[in-house]
């Protein structure tokens, strides 16, 4: 490790109200797998965007093979040999695989030759891809392959991967790791961004830990325990959510043969989904993104209409009822997308409280809204769920992700639901807010509510759910008690390796 490939020193980048990176320094050697570890908002994304030329640092220096390195655009970065696999936002659904790959290359060969090279490289690394398929028709795992192939065709010296495993099944993660180890053995350095500690301990040679924009530690992750790493990352000891064991009650929500089409062109239809949810239990629904999670939430919240008998609440047919009728009956929901779906970004918290609270909190009489009452409801949510904001007149978009998520979940819980459906309740939320939200869900279940928690975070589901089922291409597996399941079994329920060729990699 004498000769560093990339060295970063004193890198600083400030945005209004927040210093995203504060004198960050670290180095990556050729062939090294280096982890950037930190919570949401710790500054990992800003840091790699500076390395990739998307954001210019305020101060500090970067050197690439002992030469000064100042990429003004991603084109410069790619010319130097830096490639990046994005967590999201870098594929074009209506274009085909080859076109998507060409867009990420500096001097792509003609389409015919490019298709050949895609087949070659994808075969070599065990990541099969058909160059002429539309990206919109691919699964999340396949889309990631497109990104990886795009990088590999450039023969990169440094490969940046931003949270690559959040969209993969455990089996697919294993295949990805084999690919990365092989690249590392061939001399490619990898900068691996994650907040998943076990992954980093399994894969990485070195780790730089960021907290609130500062480097708080550099270490060899294989020599530290996951707990030590977590405490470095969070800066405090976290207590795991606790719950009192309770006997499940009667069936409250009965989903029986639910099939609905998606409302978006590249969405996934639900196919014959059945599930019984009992009072006082938490049913966790796992699965890779894009396998029908949004559609399941919409079908349960009432945004998508289905056959009347496909969904029953307390034995009453509600499949064709709208969201407000379901709220009246006690079925509440909190969607994944906070800004624009669960809340209106430019509206005040008072108005956002009225968004779902109108019916059960009786905020309107004869069609006229009682804004005073709505404001008191918003204030109650802010107080009970420790939402950090100057007051309920502030716009939803002014809140941080964690605070807005506490507001959204709190808004539903305070309405005393009999059934609560949540999708990705802690996505993009800092650790302490995530712990608070999980605890609130468990407390709600302890008070006798039935909870359906859709999530792509397996650790979360293992932690809070009594039973686990997985969505795979719009179909729901038979739910099983969580404590009986191994990680391999869960992976198979989620669809295994989605047609990847494990053996091929080892050849």
């Amino acid at each position: 490790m004498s000769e560093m490939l990339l060295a970063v020193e004193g890198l600083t980048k400030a945005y209004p109200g927040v210093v995203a990176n504060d004198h960050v320094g670290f180095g990556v050697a050729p062939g090294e797998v280096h982890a950037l570890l930190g919570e949401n908002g710790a500054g990992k994304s800003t840091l790699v965007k500076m390395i990739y030329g998307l954001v210019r640092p305020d101060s500090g220096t970067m050197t690439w093979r002992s030469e000064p390195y100042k990429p003004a655009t991603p084109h410069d970065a790619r010319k130097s040999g830096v490639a990046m696999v994005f967590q999201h936002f870098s594929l074009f659904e209506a274009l085909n695989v080859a076109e998507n790959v060409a867009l990420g290359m500096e001097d792509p060969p003609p389409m015919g030759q490019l298709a050949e090279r895609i087949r070659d490289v994808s075969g070599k690394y065990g990541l099969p891809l058909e160059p002429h398929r539309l990206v919109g028709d691919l699964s999340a795992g396949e889309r990631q392959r497109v990104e990886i192939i795009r990088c590999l065709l450039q023969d990169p010296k440094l490969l940046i991967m931003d949270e690559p495993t959040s969209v993969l099944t455990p089996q697919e993660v294993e295949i990805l790791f084999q690919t990365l180890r092989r690249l590392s053995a061939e001399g490619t350095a990898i900068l691996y961004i994650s907040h998943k500690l076990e992954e980093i301990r399994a894969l990485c040679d070195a780790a730089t830990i960021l907290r609130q924009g500062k480097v708080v530690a550099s270490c060899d992750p294989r020599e530290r325990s996951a707990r030590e790493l977590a405490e470095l990352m969070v800066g405090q000891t976290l207590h795991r959510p606790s719950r009192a064991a309770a006997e499940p009650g009667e069936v409250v929500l009965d989903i029986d043969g639910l099939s609905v089409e998606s409302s978006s062109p590249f969405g996934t239809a639900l196919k014959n989904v059945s599930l019984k949810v009992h009072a006082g239990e938490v049913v966790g629904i796992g699965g890779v993104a894009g396998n029908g999670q949004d559609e399941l939430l919409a079908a349960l919240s009432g945004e998508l209409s289905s056959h009347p008998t496909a969904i029953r609440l307390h034995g009453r047919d509600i499949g064709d009822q709208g969201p407000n009728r379901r709220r009246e009956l006690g079925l509440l929901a909190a969607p994944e997308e906070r800004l624009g779906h669960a809340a209106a970004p430019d509206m005040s918290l008072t108005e956002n409280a009225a968004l779902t609270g109108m019916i059960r909190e009786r905020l309107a009489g004869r069609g006229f809204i009682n804004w005073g009452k709505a404001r008191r409801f918003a204030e109650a949510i802010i107080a009970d769920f420790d939402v950090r904001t100057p007051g309920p007149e502030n716009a939803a978009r002014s809140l941080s992700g964690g605070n807005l998520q506490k507001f959204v979940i709190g808004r539903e819980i305070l309405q005393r639901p009999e059934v609560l459906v949540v999708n990705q309740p802690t996505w993009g939320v800092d650790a302490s807010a995530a712990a608070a939200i999980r605890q609130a869900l468990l407390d709600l279940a302890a008070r006798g509510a039935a909870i359906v928690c859709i999530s792509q975070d397996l650790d979360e589901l293992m932690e809070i759910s009594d039973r686990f089922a997985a969505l795979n291409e719009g179909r729901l597996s038979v739910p099983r008690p969580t404590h009986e399941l191994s990680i391999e079994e869960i992976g198979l329920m989620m669809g295994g390796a989605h047609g990847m060729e494990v053996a091929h990699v080892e050849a």
Partner: protein
Amino acid sequence: MDLSAIDPLVLAASIMVASTPILLAALGEMVVERAGVLNLGVEGMMITGAVCGFIIAVQGESPALGFLAAAAGGAGLALLFGFLTQYLLANQVASGLALTMFGLGLSALLGQDYIGIKAPAMGEVHVPLLAEIPVLGPVLFRHDPMVYLSVALVAGVWAFLRYSRAGLILRAVGENHDAAHALGYKVVRIRMAAIAFGGALAGLGGAYISLVRVPQWTEGMTAGAGWIALAIVVFASWRPWRVLLGAYLFGGVTVLQLNLQAAGVDIPVVYLSMLPYLVTIFVLVVMSASSGRAALGAPAALGRVFHASG
């Protein structure tokens, strides 16, 4: 009523002339929309092109100079729209409407001294040999250069979008501007270029009305052609050759309607003059009712505001 007064050959030949303004404007707008921008100001850019082209053609006694000025005028107005929507992040629907109103006012002001003047004529180009083919010759190959240019532009745009890297980047920007930005493409600059191109073509289309079709200047003479061009883009599912088809279909209806009026057909004039607009509505309904294809053809980022948060 005397239908024999309508000569089918003359009718067919005049379709190409009647369609050219809308074809040019719709083709330009299609490129703009493929880049993810909805510019509803086509009518305003067309009328501005019509007046700029007319004034310069009269002053310089050259239709060719007029068309150049029309393209510049249309593009200039379009860049105003681009500045508002791409740099100041204004609402695209409102800005497009503003552009139309501004263009109508500007053209009326500029053109007030040119009412009643005749434009210098543009000669026909008979394509050698082909023009002598019976039936097809007079219909297809005895037109002014702008007719051929408009068809060539359709082919050019088609090849550009399908085969060139710049075309691929333009489509990518219209599909997902965040991803294009993340890969390092200059979303705003690419869109500004597309907007200017669309404005230039709308200007040419407008000038074709004032210099060839009519050929003189009257206030508001585009009479909704810009809006029809917008409808044709939807009809065409954002594909160049279908834009040609849509424009010629619409031109056909217009020409037929005018000929029927001239022949004194037993249908009240009011219904005949409504016909082009009613046909446009009907076509829009048919296209949007067969939802799947139309929805897939639309660029995903169409009309959305792009702001690089860094």
